[in-house]
């Protein structure tokens, strides 16, 4: 499933911690990681199997793991 991951990282910390954070997420089961918003918003997108969701959520730098949901006009 496609998920959005919000990280507890300040903008000026991203460069220094980038590789270690990505490695930890990869080990926890995150695949096809999209880092385009990592620097600007501390956000990542990637795919994860449901069985690994909790592994991602338990990582200390992860604030939230949210599935890509549907949004409608109001």
């Amino acid at each position, binding site marked *: 499933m496609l998920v*959005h991951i919000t990280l507890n990282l300040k903008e000026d910390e991203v460069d220094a911690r980038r590789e270690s954070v990505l490695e930890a997420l990869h080990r926890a089961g995150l695949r096809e990681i999209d880092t385009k918003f990592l620097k600007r918003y501390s956000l990542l997108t990637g795919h994860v199997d449901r069985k690994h969701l909790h592994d991602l959520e338990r990582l200390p730098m992860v604030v939230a793991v949210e599935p890509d*949901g549907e949004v*409608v006009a*109001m």
Partner: protein
Amino acid sequence: MNTSFLSSEAPAHIIVFRKVTPENVQLLARVLDATPQPADADVQSVTRTVLSLRNGVHARVYNQLGIAVATLTPEQIYELRQLGDILTITPDEERRLPEVRPVPVTDEESTALQITLHPAELLADPQSDVVPVARAEGTFRQIGLDPADLTLTGRNVRVAVLDTGVDLTHPDLNVQVENTRSFIAEEPEIDDHHGHGTHCAGVIAGSAAPVGGVRYGVAPDVTLFVAKVLNKEGRGRDSGILDAIDWAAAQGAEVISLSLGSPRSKGSSFSARYEALASRLLDRGVLLVAATGNDSARPDHISAVGNPAACPSVLAVTAVDHRDRISTFGGADVDGIGLVDLAAPGVGVLSAWPGGGVQRLSGTSMATPHVAGVAALYLQVDATCTGAALWRRLTDRARPVAGLSRADAGAGIVQAP
């Protein structure tokens, strides 16, 4: 006992257990202080156990899936996570058709919703090359905007609308194609096949001299950026919206109008991803404005503010009718998580419609672009007043209305400079 009604309930949370085991039923029953119902052909089977709670609420455990549905308090969510081998607990986010609400209005009623300017007001600026209008929507009076003041039009301010696209050929709109982009893969053109986006764009940037003679655009001279993030059915994905917000900010938009969202159950968290984006952008001087949602049915039911409006760094807008009364449908602060910041006209709102005409619609979607348009007017007056400062100015200068509670309408009805 007839328990058939239980199967038609819509609980607020989905609980995913790590293991498929009979202990899941016992765990949930313990936390909810509930009793498993005896087997019944109508509702009970080997695949599903219904729990009956003393407070009348019910829960269901799908035994072979390791999934349960229930309405949980924050304390119960915490307790479940502490006691059980829980994979996730997520709000049961109901998906539904877009709520575009066409409002049938007779000519007589329509006239009553408008204001007519006196001749002196029509001559506000003899040097102006813009043709003054004779009539404007009554919404202008509600938001304290003089439609005859053609110096206050949002000129040189960049505003973005993320919606179903826009009718680029509409005579009341002036949107440059290079200022548009579709984030819907199956609809790569910006053309609006729904109508909602054109309507929202019209409320912000409809011409000061519209073809129909009745002005409805709050800030007719803004530079409008339009991103298509909802398809012809009015549906989109979070991923496309995040991309579009980033695109709009990169274009220099200082206000981003989001007449969209997803329902949020009472007590559940705001969206972390939208908050991450909005808080960073607010720091950079970009204000996100979003609709609270249309799921209330006052006086019987009041829904929580949806996402992304529930995020603390997103300015949440609800709708009032033309008499400053809260709409029956607007989401409200029911849990201290999703707050309402401002109200604006959102019932029977006239605006542009694909094909060149106009339409009256109701929704918090229609209120949101009113606030985005007024925000643009403040930016025109003071270009340094951006982001959080703009937010404060909008709320500080809102008009409180007796009978409108803070939970329903925040600081009150948005007011132009």
